Structures are given as C-alpha cells and as structure tokens.
C-alpha cells in the first residue's frame, strides 16, 4: 500500500517535470524569445541589454535549470503585465478556484451517484429515460452557452442572481452574498462532470447488478437494500473513482471558461488574461500550478481507491 502510493507520487512528480520542460520549451520556441515578443517596439540594443540582465542570453538548458530551481521554491518570476511577483498573483487566485471547482465537484458527485443508481435499478423506466437523455444533453452542451442562458433567465429576466464577480460591490462580505454569487458558476461548472459521472455510475451499476455475487446475495435472501447498497454499489464505485481522476483536468479546463464568463477571479480567468496579453510568466506558472493540483487530486483518488477496493492494498 505505502509502496503503491509512493510509486504514484513519483509518477506524479515525473509528470510535473515533463510538463515544466514542455511549457518552458514552448515559450522559448516563440520567434524572438520571450523578452522581445512581449514588446516588439524595443530597439535591438536595448533588447540585448534586457536579455543580458534577465539571463536570456544563457544557453537554454541553463535557463531551464534556473527557472525550474526558482519555480520549485515558489518563485515564478515577475508578471510582465502586473509588475507583481507571479507567485503572489497565483496564490491570491488559488482559493477562489478551489472554492468554485470544489463546490462544482461536490455537486456533481452528490447528485450523480444516486441519480445513476436509480437509473440503473429502474432500467428502461420513464425515469431512466429522462435521466439518460438529460445526461446526454449535459455532456454535449457548451458550458459558456449554458452560462449565457442562465444569465439571461436568472439575471436579465428574473433578476434573482448576480451575473458576475464574487461579491456585491459596496456590501460588506457575507456568506449569503458569496453563496448567491456561487450558485450559477458552480452549476455551470458541475454540468459536464455530473452528466459524465452519471453515465458511468449507471453503466457500471448495470454491470454490477448482473454479476453472480449479486444473484448469490439475492438467493440467500438479503433484502434488496443490502444487495444494492452493500454488494452492487460498492463494486460499481470502483471504476467511478478512476473516472473522477480523469475528470479533474477537464473540470479545471472548464473552470477557465466558467470563471471568464462570470468574472470569477480565479486561476483560469488569470490564465486567459495572461494568454491574451502574452504575459508568459503568469501563464507558465498557472499551467504548472494547475498541473500540480491535478497530480495532488490524483493522489487523493489513489488513497480513496484503497479505501473502496481493499484488494489494492494487498498488491
């Protein structure tokens, strides 16, 4: 068990290492190099001087080693746009992104498991049909369109919910205000993982219910609740945990779009702004940081895996 987790940790670190090399290479493959591209109007003599001061005339591997060394210590350089340290910018945004993504993920799991289960138990019923079609719509709808529709209905027409930001300007912070601002973004962000999870829960539940051990459980006279809850569900949840690991990167990708629409000051919106203004240190740092978040969540998934499927611990 400990060896299994240590191996996964090592793999996660390796992934981060490769990501760092790739993103660094991308930025340095840019024509003219990072300093020049940021401001094409700088005259060539000045540009050389800037490059020398920033160490951009060193060989690429040395630059990479220096950048990586700083990044590991939490120093991502200065933002071209904000003039602030990139790390400060990123740290300020992390809690907001975690709040939004966490709420969305919680919403998705809490709704998807019972809905998928009910769908599987009453397979081919009207209920199952509605749930299946809804899930299908959920994986196909463009999130930003859903967001615009919700804004049209709940902000423009009904005026019930705020359409942007994390708080009402001029009001002191209150939980109620924060919650109201969180409703639409978290629903929008939860839609894809919710629908996808529901489809997986349903199909793995259908599969589990057809297994011999379920028939055995029924044959020995267990009440249906015990059969479904203890025997089928527990086995059906194993593949679901894997899906959760695959969904996290997609969730954080969705957060980019969701945060931009609802003006939610998170990492995703920061990354979009940085991409549009070519603020390389910021977008490099954001990509690395988000990758680290995914690796971390995968490790948590691995621990969950062992809890749900004790066979893993024996390996």
């Amino acid at each position, binding site marked *: 068990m400990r060896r299994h987790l240590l191996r996964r940790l090592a*793999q*996660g670190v*390796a*992934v981060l290492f*490769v*990501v760092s090399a*790739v*993103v660094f290479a*991308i*930025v340095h*493959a*840019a024509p003219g190099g990072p300093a020049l*591209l940021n401001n094409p109007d700088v005259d060539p003599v000045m540009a050389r001087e800037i490059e020398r001061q920033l160490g951009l005339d060193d060989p690429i591997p040395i630059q990479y080693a220096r950048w990586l060394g700083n990044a590991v210590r939490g120093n991502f350089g200065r933002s071209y746009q904000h003039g602030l340290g990139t790390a400060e910018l990123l740290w300020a945004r992390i809690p907001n992104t975690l709040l939004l993504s966490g709420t969305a993920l919680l919403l998705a799991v809490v709704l998807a498991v019972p809905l998928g289960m009910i769908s599987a138990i009453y397979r081919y019923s009207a209920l199952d049909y509605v749930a299946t079609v809804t899930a*299908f*719509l959920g*994986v*196909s*709808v*463009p*999130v*930003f*369109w859903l967001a*615009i*529709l919700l*804004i*049209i209905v709940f902000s*423009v027409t009904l005026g019930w919910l705020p359409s942007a930001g994390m708080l009402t300007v001029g009001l002191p912070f209150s939980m109620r205000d924060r919650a109201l601002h969180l409703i639409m973004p978290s629903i929008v962000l939860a839609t894809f993982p919710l629908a996808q999870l529901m489809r997986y829960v349903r*199909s793995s539940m*259908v*599969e589990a219910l057809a297994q011999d051990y379920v028939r055995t459980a029924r044959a020995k006279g267990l009440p249906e609740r015990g059969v479904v809850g203890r025997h089928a569900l527990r086995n059906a949840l194993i593949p679901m945990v894997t899906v959760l690991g*695959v969904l996290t*990167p*997609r969730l*954080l*990708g*969705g957060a*980019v*779009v969701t945060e*931009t*629409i609802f003006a939610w000051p998170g990492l995703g919106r920061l*990354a*979009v702004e*940085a*991409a*549009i203004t*070519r603020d*390389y240190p910021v*977008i*490099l740092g*954001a*990509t690395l940081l*988000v*990758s680290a978040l*995914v*690796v971390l969540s*995968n490790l948590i998934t691995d621990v969950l895996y062992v809890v749900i499927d004790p066979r893993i611990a024996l390996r």
Partner: protein
Amino acid sequence: MDQTAVLEGGMARDAGAERGVADAWRRFRRNRLAVVAFAYLVIVHGVAALAPWFGLPDPEAMDLLNQFSPPSSEHVLGTDETGRDVLARLVFGARASLAVGLAAMLVAVAVGTALGALSGFCGGWPETAIMRLTDGMLTVPTFFLALLVLAVFGSNIGNVVLVIGLTGWMVVARVVRAEILRALPQEFVVASRALGASEARMLVRHLLPQALPSVIVAATLGVAYAVLTESALSYLGLGVQAPTPTWGNMLSGAQHYVWKSPVLALYPGAAIMLTVLSYNALGDALSDTLDPRHAGS
C-alpha cells in the same frame, strides 16, 4: 497450416465481414436517436459545404443603420450588433467550426494511431515511453496548455487545429495499442508471420484493420470534443479570429448584448449543442453496432 487453408480462412473472414456489416447496419437502424443524429449531421455538413451557393447575404458585411433588426424577408433571422445577417453568419460559421472539428480529429487520429501502433507493435522501451507520455497528457489540464500555445504562436485556424488535435490523441493511442495487443496472438496473425510477411505488411494489412472499428468510434466522439473545444477557444477570443464567423466567436459577440437582444445568443449555441450531441449519439451508436459486446448496456 498450408497456403490454401490460410486462403480459405481469409475468405471465410471476408464473408463473415460482409455479414458483420449487414448486421451492424441493422443494429444501427434500430437506434432511432442515432439515425436522426446522422441525418442532422448530413444536412449540416451539406449546408456548410454548399454555403456560398444559397444566395445568402455576405456574412461579413456590416450595416450599422440596421443593428439588431428583427427577422424580415431580407434577413431571415434578423441582424446582429453590427447589422450583419445572422442566418448567413450561422451557415458560414458552420464551415469554420466543422472544418476545424474534422481537421483536428484527423490530426488526433493520425498521431494517436501512429503512437498506439508503435507502442503495441514494438513493445519494450518505446511502449513504456509512449504509454507514460499518454498517461501524462491525460493528467495535464490540456486547456491551459492550449491557451499557452495559442498565446505564444498566435491564434489562427491552423494553430487551433493543431492544438486541439495534439491534445486529443490519447484515447485513440490507447485504443489502437489495446486492439493490436489483442490481435497479435491470434491465428491469422501468427499464420501471416509464418508465411514470411514483412513487419510493415503485417501492421497495415492485419493489425490496423482490427483496430479500425474502435478508431472510428473514438474519431466520432473526437469530432464532438474538437467542435466543443474550438467553440470554447473562439469564445474566449483565442480561437478563429474575426471577421471569419464561427459559432464560438458569434457567441462571444452576442454575450455582450444579452441585455438588449438575448435571442442572438440562442442560435449559435443551439447549433453547437445539436452538432456535438449528434456526434456523441453517433459515436455511442457506432460503439454498440461495431462491437456487439457493448450492445444493450
């Protein structure tokens, strides 16, 4: 096994394949949703391909005196914030959105098939390296990577296709590798090796065809992913650039006027959703029909 036996085996397989196609078609037709989805896709692609021949107004022609005009005989769906014809923009937007979706899918399939075949067929360290790369790419939030690449190299249609394709090949690679590993120990592969077929011939003639059904399914679902990603990137202003209309950048324009003209946001979003929905439905149906093991679940 002598040569004739192999030949007969081959013919038996061909006859089986024919029966398989007829069976698959029958199973496919039973799935109403998939048939409707397929019909919709044929129509949308037809309209997109023939867009210049419908006598529609120029989708990029602005008319600032005619902003937000309601539907009329001249402008069937009305005009947008700069007085451009909404229907024309929808139809021409389909061209860019679908072209990017299909091209990105082709990139993903080409890369995924090459890497999957290489890892399944060679084994050893190339296999380990490729599978690690695949796992890594599945861990990385590729959307951030896409933003970075477009920021560095600029947003044009070619870069958007490449970015979506190069972040979407992982499923294809896994599927191709799995099918090749499944086919390698089978008799017809062993027989062809015994007859002295070259490695390349084995791969192209015997192993890749085994992976074809799964690749078709992955490719169909891949178009849905690509269309959705393109629309998101264009919506953010990092995809296909104005004035070329795509469904994504139409929405990004319409968003600023939801207070004034909410209906503008409805059409392009609905077009994206129906297209993605249809490709997803088609992919699901194909996975049921091409692989009977999945049917009924």
